[in-house]
């Protein structure tokens, strides 16, 4: 029998094995068949998804739970275009995923052949980098570069488009270890003179705030940031994506800032005399009206991506570098500071404006999440979808551990939460993983219940079911005279029966008295996935809230009596 020749697909899979890939989240099709065939004899485990968007979010959840790249494998044409949302989601939140797409054979490119699409063309704007492989001998180099690019510097998604004649044909190329990318540099340590200047400003500050973002999560800067905060006695706030970089229950931590952040975090930001961004990018959800954001405060910006400097605000000091390394270099340059007066003010705000919600009047999402925090002890990995439940989860589930909070921030992708939880659970089999989703977003990717069920994955899905697209309803109530338009989710299925139809264990919470018992049972259930559907009050609102485009000082603690102007400064 003739020796089996190594095909491009074989080589690709061998390269993935060399990179340490454990799982591929994929859905096949004609153009991807050689790659799926090569997986038959590989030790890499294939997770068959039900929709390609799910594959990308699983890869994303895997990536965010570990820092290692998540891999999605799809076919050409519609298979590939279904990954665009997942790519954009990963791109906006700097998540390292690699999407491998089957493609028509090279002679058919550009000829409108069956399931042929200009996938690199369609995705340019939502990838960190991409490749269309036209020569099988490029496979080892392209794969090596893809892993390097996805995970280094500011991480991001990479797409590799693989025509079927390339994956099916022979490939004799040797593996590649060296990277030759003259246009790609990875910032590491910050410039010492800038770090010294930042130290001086920090030391002089009477009312500092450390503003912690996703860069701190990615670089693992938490320990250094806490040391800095403790030394300077500086309060910390974090962004939605920065949750978990440092323990949110730390006494110096004021919680999340921004549009739906805690009142005390936002008040601290309004009144600070220095704000230092550690891997955060002054997003419009954070700054509100830019012209009025921290006008008199010294602004220091630490970022691995220099394109973030002067984009939204002009920092006094901009330090290009890895968040952890920069903060570690800062530490020995500052001395213990006395900010007790400032901390006392922050403590007063914390007492005066706690996160709160009505205890009466039906089952409240906030209450369910409060109890979930007790049940998990803040030790579970939480993923969320997008909307009201996401903001309540961000407020009430205090994240204690790095990479234990996974949410779609920049893109705000509905349908992200549940598949991301599946990816995270594959990545972290020993951890408890909870997806907190809304009834709207869950229905966008709920077909992945089958994926979770097949693998008996003990992932837990809490549906905050209010039968509304709740955040849009809240805006219509507040800014559009309660003229509800396209927000009532009539025709929702019975989520418990739906889960059961997939062979998935499910509970329903209808009364506050049942929350603890059911969440506890779900938390302990490990025979497979489970769903908890909490039928919460339908018309509840997320507060505090800074209306889009308003200054932080315009924060609403509760629903105002007067009519509000429609937001114009941002969407």
């Amino acid at each position, binding site marked *: 029998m003739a020796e089996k020749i190594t095909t491009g697909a074989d080589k690709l899979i061998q390269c993935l094995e060399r990179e340490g890939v454990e799982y591929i989240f994929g859905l096949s099709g004609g153009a991807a068949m050689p790659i799926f065939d090569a997986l038959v004899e590989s030790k890499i485990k294939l997770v068959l998804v039900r929709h390609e968007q799910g594959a990308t979010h699983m890869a994303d959840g895997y990536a965010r739970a570990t820092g290692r790249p998540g891999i999605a494998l799809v076919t050409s044409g519609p298979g590939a275009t279904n990954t665009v949302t997942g790519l954009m989601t990963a791109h906006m939140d700097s998540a390292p995923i690699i999407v491998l797409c089957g493609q028509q054979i090279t002679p058919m490119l550009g000829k409108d052949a069956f399931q042929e699409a200009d996938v*690199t063309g369609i995705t*340019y*704007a939502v990838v*960190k980098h991409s490749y*269309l492989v036209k020569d099988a001998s490029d496979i080892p180099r392209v794969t090596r570069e893809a892993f390097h690019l996805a995970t280094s510097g500011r991480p991001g998604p990479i797409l590799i488009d693989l025509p079927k004649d390339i994956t099916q044909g022979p490939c004799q190329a040797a593996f590649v270890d060296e990277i030759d*990318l*003259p*246009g790609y540099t990875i910032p590491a340590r910050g410039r010492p003179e800038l770090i010294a200047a930042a130290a001086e400003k920090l030391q002089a500050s009477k009312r500092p705030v450390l503003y912690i973002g996703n860069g701190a999560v990615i670089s693992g800067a938490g320990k250094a940031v806490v040391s800095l905060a403790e030394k300077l006695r500086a309060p910390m706030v974090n962004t939605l994506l920065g949750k978990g970089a440092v323990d949110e229950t730390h006494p110096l931590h004021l919680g999340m800032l921004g549009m739906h952040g805690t009142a005390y975090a936002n008040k601290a930001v309004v009144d600070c005399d220095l704000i230092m961004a550690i891997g955060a990018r002054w997003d419009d959800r954070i700054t509100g009206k830019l012209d009025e954001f921290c006008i008199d405060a010294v602004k220091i910006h630490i970022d691995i991506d220099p*394109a973030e400097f*002067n984009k939204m605000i002009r920092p006094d000091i901009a330090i290009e570098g890895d968040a952890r390394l920069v903060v570690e270099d800062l530490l020995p340059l500052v001395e213990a500071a006395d900010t007790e007066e400032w901390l006392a003010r922050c403590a007063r705000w914390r007492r005066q404006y706690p996160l709160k919600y009505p205890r009466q009047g039906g089952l409240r999402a906030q209450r369910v999440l409060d109890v979930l925090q007790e049940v998990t002890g803040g030790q579970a990995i939480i993923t969320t979808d997008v909307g009201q439940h996401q903001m309540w989860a961000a407020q009430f589930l205090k994240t204690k551990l790095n990479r234990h909070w996974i949410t779609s921030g920049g893109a705000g992708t509905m349908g992200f939460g549940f598949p991301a939880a599946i990816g995270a659970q594959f990545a972290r089999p020993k951890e408890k993983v909870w997806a907190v989703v809304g009834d709207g977003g869950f229905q966008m990717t709920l077909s992945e219940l089958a994926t979770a069920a097949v693998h008996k994955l003990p992932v837990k899905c809490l549906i905050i079911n209010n039968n509304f697209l709740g955040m849009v309803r809240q805006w219509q109530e507040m800014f559009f005279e309660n003229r509800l338009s396209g927000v009532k989710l009539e025709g929702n299925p019975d989520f418990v029966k739906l889960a059961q139809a997939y062979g998935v264990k499910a509970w329903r919470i209808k009364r506050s008295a049942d929350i603890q018992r059911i969440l506890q049972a779900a938390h302990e259930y490990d025979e497979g996935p489970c769903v908890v559907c909490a039928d919460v009050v339908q018309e509840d609102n997320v507060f505090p809230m800074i209306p889009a485009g308003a200054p932080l000082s315009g924060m609403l603690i509760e629903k105002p009596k007067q009519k509000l102007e429609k937001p114009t400064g941002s969407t």
Partner: protein
Amino acid sequence: MSEALQAATGEVRNLHTISLFVHNRPGVLVRVALVFSRRGYNIESLVVSPAAKGGFSRMTITCSGASETLEQIIKQLAKLVDVVHAVDHTHDCAYETEIALLKVACSSAERTEILQIAEHFGAKVVDYGTDSLMLRVFGASDKLDALIALLGPFDLVELVRSGKILMARAGAAT
């Protein structure tokens, strides 16, 4: 946008000249173009040519748009994996040049004056037809603009400009 065009449209937009040193990989031109289009910048001219170093290319881009956005554009260009470096030469005294071909329809009566203008600008007649002239001229872009403006009263049938190319002087890198 040339000054002549600016005068015609009454629009004042800032012109910037950026040079890029890029890894010659598929898609690099699209990636570069997308950085401009996403931020509302108009590419006025774009010249791509092989660099002295094999496998690399030079791009000289003249573009117009809000000056505040330019810093972001340069940084986003530099961030592209295939872009080795991106430099804004707008306020440099780099050596710049451009070449233009002009086809002017003319009667024999007009020809003398056109030839005088051409001579003054060092433009060479590269095609001499019975009722048209083709001129080739090179030099700074504003010199080309001036020539085009002077030929305004005549019947300028076709105009092809190469777009600006430039090189930093002495020890400076382009």
